[in-house]
Structures are given as structure tokens and as C-alpha cells.
């Protein structure tokens, strides 16, 4: 081989002494000469990965190594001896491949955000027994009773009538999980929500505002949709995954910065689940021959109420807009 010898530092691994040497390769044998004389077949040497500015290292089996001072000459020598960079290194050092990797990563993240994560959360939620949901929601109602809710002022006979009418309806998908409907007076105004424990809470204020049992059935069907399709568990899984990814990406810089995208993504998933629960309510109304206008009237009433107050009702936060939901309910087949 006609390569000129390459200047390097030799370290023996026992002392920090720096030896000036030259490296040369003859017939597959590396020859070190200068302040240290040593030779070794090249297949017993390990060469460090290629970086732009860092000196490369050639390590012997006993821990001694060479730090090569001239990168370009050394690259030529490696090429001549048939050394090949690993695939990962070749991708890392190639802008076009890196660009492809970047686009691939962005597409993967987008795909996960739109389809893979909701799909995976659905599968995981399916695999988890319902009892896990119940465990998560245990104690929530008790907490709310202590801080936000008061016992219902509705007569028990009225409560009973609403519940028995609702339980008599057929669900659009069979095998609805066990659930319980409870009524509460609240400081949060007209509202209804489902807990992971399978409890559907309806406030007195909502019953009075709607003043229409058909519309009330719509609200309860929507909440049953959340329970039946395990939205709370799925949202918990999805927001945990999003939180973890955001922390990996932005956590180093600022915790506040990391929480912003996580929050935005969580809102999107929340709206998706609301639409799904609306679809469940629509299907339930069809299955029981109830007029769909009654379902839409829920949002019309909430809309008129929030318009007067100049503040969105709590029921609507992180939800799709009322106009969109009304149009969807009336428009869907």
C-alpha cells in the first residue's frame, strides 16, 4: 500500500504518558512505530465511529489505543483497508438520509397522534378489566360531594322516574357495563358527567334547565357513551403517553413549555371523545325511536344560556362547538 504513515498519539492504558508514533498498514497488519513499536492484525483492532471534528481512536485488545491526529489521511487509510462505517453512522453523516429520518419521524409522530395512539389506547383499555376503571374512579364522587356538590333537591320520585325511563332504553351496542345515575345540586351550574367508576352525575340545574325528559335522555345517553366506550381510561392512557413524549422533547428546557403541547393534544382527544359520545347518543335515540331534534335541543338550550352569560358553560369546555354538534346530530343518518 502506498499510504504515507499517519501521525498519532499512543497511550498504553497504564499511564497517561503520550507517545508520538506513526501508524502504517502492511498486508492487513497495523504497524506502530516511533516512541513505541508495536504491530497487530487489523481485524483485532477496534476503530471509533466517525465524527466530523473529533480525533478517531484505534483501540487494541489490551486497552491501549491510538488517537489519530490527521482525520483525512486516516479516512483514506480505512478505505484502502476495506473498513466500512456501520449503517447508522452512514445515515448520521449523510444529510439526505438524516432529512429522510426527520420526515420519517415527523410522519410517525403525526400518525401516532392521529391514529396509532388512539388505537393503542383502545386496545389497552379493552385488555384492562373494567375493575381497573372502577379503581381509578373510586373516591372521586366522595371528593366531589365534599367540595363541589350538594345533595339533590329533586323529589326522589322524580329521580326514580328519570332513571327507570333511561334504564328501559336499549343501548346501541349490547353489553353496557354496570352504571349508576345519581343527582346532585351543584355550584357548577347545569352539568352532567361520567366518572370512571361508572357513575353518571346529573345536576338538578341541568334537569331544570332542559325541562324535557326526552332531552335529558339524550344527555344521559351521551354520558353512558363515555362509560360504555371507556373514554376516561382511554383519555388517561393517551394523555400519559403524550405527556411522556412531550417531556422527552421539551422537558430539558422548561416544564411549562412541555405542558403546552401536551395540553393542546389532550384537548383534541377530548373533543374526539365528545363526538364519539354524541354518536353513541344518536345511535341510542335511533334504536329507541326518539326524535333527534330533542338531542339537538340540549345544545340549543346550553347555547342560549351561555350566550346570555358571556361565558362558556362548564359543560362545553374542551368540547366541540354547539353549532357543530347540532349540525352533526341533525345531519347524520
Amino acid at each position, binding site marked *: 500500500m502506498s499510504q504515507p504513515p499517519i501521525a498519532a*498519539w499512543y497511550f498504553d492504558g497504564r499511564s*497517561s504518558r503520550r507517545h508520538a508514533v506513526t501508524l502504517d498498514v502492511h498486508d492487513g497488519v497495523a504497524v506502530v512505530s516511533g516512541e513505541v513499536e508495536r504491530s497487530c492484525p487489523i481485524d483485532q483492532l477496534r476503530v471509533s465511529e466517525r465524527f466530523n471534528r*473529533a480525533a478517531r481512536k484505534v483501540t487494541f485488545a489490551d486497552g491501549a489505543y491510538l*488517537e489519530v491526529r490527521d482525520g483525512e489521511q486516516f479516512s483514506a487509510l480505512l478505505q484502502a483497508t476495506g473498513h466500512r462505517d456501520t449503517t447508522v453512522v452512514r445515515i448520521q453523516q449523510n444529510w439526505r438520509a438524516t432529512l429522510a429520518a426527520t420526515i420519517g419521524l415527523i410522519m*410517525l409522530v403525526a400518525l401516532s397522534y392521529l391514529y396509532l395512539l388512539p388505537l393503542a389506547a383502545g386496545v389497552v383499555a379493552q385488555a384492562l378489566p373494567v375493575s381497573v376503571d372502577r379503581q381509578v374512579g373510586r373516591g372521586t364522587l366522595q371528593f366531589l360531594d365534599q367540595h363541589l356538590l350538594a345533595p339533590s333537591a329533586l323529589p326522589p320520585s322524580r329521580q326514580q322516574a328519570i332513571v327507570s325511563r333511561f334504564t328501559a332504553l336499549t343501548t346501541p351496542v349490547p353489553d353496557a357495563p354496570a352504571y349508576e345515575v345519581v343527582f346532585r345540586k351543584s355550584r357548577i351550574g347545569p352539568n352532567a358527567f361520567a366518572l370512571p367508576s361508572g357513575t353518571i352525575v346529573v345536576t338538578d340545574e341541568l334537569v331544570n334547565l332542559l325541562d324535557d325528559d326526552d332531552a335529558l335522555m339524550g344527555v344521559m345517553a351521551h354520558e353512558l357513551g363515555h362509560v360504555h366506550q371507556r373514554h376516561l381510561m382511554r383519555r388517561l392512557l393517551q394523555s400519559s403517553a403524550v405527556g411522556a413524549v412531550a417531556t422527552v422533547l421539551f422537558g430539558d428546557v422548561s416544564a411549562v413549555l412541555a405542558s403546552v*403541547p401536551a395540553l393542546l393534544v389532550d384537548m383534541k382527544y377530548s373533543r374526539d371523545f365528545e363526538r364519539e359520545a354524541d354518536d353513541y347518543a344518536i345511535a341510542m335515540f335511533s334504536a329507541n325511536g326518539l326524535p333527534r331534534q330533542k338531542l339537538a335541543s340540549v345544545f340549543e338550550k346550553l347555547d342560549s344560556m351561555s350566550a346570555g352569560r358571556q361565558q362558556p358553560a362548564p359543560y362545553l369546555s374542551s368540547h366541540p362547538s354547539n353549532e357543530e354538534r347540532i349540525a352533526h346530530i341533525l345531519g347524520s343518518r
Partner: protein
Amino acid sequence: MNEHLDSNRQPDAAPPTFPTATPAPDAPAAERFVFTGRGSEYFRIWIVNLLLSVVTLGIYSAWAKVRRLRYFYDNTTVAGTSFDYHGKPLAILKGRAIALVLLVLYHGAFRISPVIGLAGMLIVGLVTPWLIWRSLQFKLYNSSYRGIRFGMRGSLGGAYINYLLLPITVFFTSGLLWPMAHQRIKRFQHNESRFGATHFSFHASIGGFYKTYLLGVGIWLAGLVVIMLAFGGSLLALVGGDRTAIGAASGLLVLVFFAVYIWSFLALPLFFTLLQNLIWNNTRLGPHRFTSNMHWGRMFFIMLTNVIGIACTLGLYTPFAKIRAMRYRIESMSLLPASDLDEFVASAEPPGSATGEGVTDLFDFDLSL
């Protein structure tokens, strides 16, 4: 001790000249740490690491870590030669797997019953000092310079005093003892570390840490007072007004919150800077000394532009940001050799286990500095 502190502080004013240039005529000149890593190159390593880690559901992250650290070590040079990282991906993967299992068990414990959960917490608390100790050993043992490995002797008892007893004491004294605890922890880490057979030593006093904390916290508090005075007047004027004023007052409160957040963010680099300078100006390796002359303004500018860059590029600027901060921190340091650097010898020592390092990675402790 204070004399050393002062003589080391002097180069702050004039970075290019060092005190070693004047004394002992045969003493070698100061050796600046040089960092040759560049954002454009690290970006490619980072993005490939990230993609492969995601595609392999995290398994590749152990290899990614080795690639990342090799890049940082290979590109850090002092006295004309670079550092080297020897960690094995499989050892790191094993550590991470164990850490993950422990983490899942830990979270599951509270679901089963609060008693088991508390017992789990207690066990984690008891095991953590051991894990930190092992992780420090692993990290140092796998670092080398000029073919000589770093290492850590440190007794397990010392780890328990510093990482369990001291934090508990700090907790029960509402944080007043934290600067003292910080000095003890750093003293433990640096005094017990060695390069080959040569030991590091740590000379910063508890008083020095209190001074730094008082300065850092004092400046931060002074800023808070200014914010409160600036907004407090208008807030008082609004309170007691009519109902529309309440909306304005809550808007102002949000503004105050943001002002405090931004101010804290500005004050943080000042604190980092003071601490790194304090710690490295008072660390020695045998007879050799170090200097660190970071400037607050520069660090602040880097951190601010980094956050803006990362926010505007949805995270793609992260590797550039990391390199910029790292480069400034590393290049602020110099080694002041007392004699020739050829005289260090290796020492025979047992390798550290990777489990500790994996766990501290997951629990996100920052053991550097």
C-alpha cells in the same frame, strides 16, 4: 481556603491571561477545555437516535445513549487529547429494563393498597442512595482520558449519609440547611472521585455555598420585590372598584404570574453560573487545579435563545440548543497543571454496574456538574 477562592476568581475579569503564567517558571501553561461538537452534526445523531428509539419502542435508547455520550466525550479535548466513553449498550439496556420494572411495580403498589404503596416508597427511599452510588461508579468507571479510567471509591455508608440522611435533615429544617447539604454532596462526589490512582479533592467551604445561595436567592428575591412593587400599586387601585375592575385585576394577576416566571427563568442561569464556578474553582486533581469562568450574561443569552429556538421549531432545535449550552460550559473551564500531565497511572478497580445508571436516568436525577 479563601485565598484560593480569590486567586481563582481573578481570571473572571480577563479570560485570556491566567495566574499560572506568572508564578513558578517551570509550571506548564493553563490548558483550556475545548469542545468541537457542532449543532449541525449532533442534530443528525439526535434525530437518527430518536427515530430508531421510537421505532424499537425504546430498546435502541441504550445504544442511542452510548452514541450520544461518545459524541460528547470524543469532542471534548484538553491538552490536545480527548476523552473516551466505554459504557456498553447492553449493560445500560439491562439497567433500564430493571428500572422500568421497578417503576411499574412502584406505581402498581399504590393501586393495590396505600400500605403496600407506602412500603414501596420506603424501599425506594432506602435503595436510592445505593443506586446513585452505583450509577456514579458506572459513569466514572466508563469515562477515560489518555487511556486512564476515572473511578469512584466512596463507601456505601458515605452514600447513605449524603443521599438519605442529609436530604431528610434538610426536609426537617425547611430547606435552610440545603446549601450545607449541597456542599457535603459535592464534597462526597469530588473527594471520592479519582483519575487512575490520583484523587480529586474538593475545597469549597460551606460558607462559600451559603454565600452563593444567598447571592442567587437574594438577587431573585430583589427582582420579586420589584415586580410586586410595580404591579402591586395598580392591583390595589383596582381592588375595591366595581365589578368590571375584578376582570382587570385577574388579568393583572396573570401578568404578575408571567413576570415572576420569566424573572425566575432569568435568574436561573445566574445561579448555574455561580455554582459551576464555585465548584470547579475549588476542585483539584492531585496537585492540578481547575478554573471555571462562566459569565452570567452569556449563559443567560444562550438559555433564552435556546428556549425561543426550541419553541419555534417544535423541538427540532433541541440538539443545537444542547450543544450551545454544553460548549459554553465546557469551554469556560481550564486545567491548571502543576506539572507534566504524563505522570498519571491507572488503578485496578472493579467495574460499576449499569443498573444504577439506568434507574437514575429514568428517575431523571441530574448527577452532572
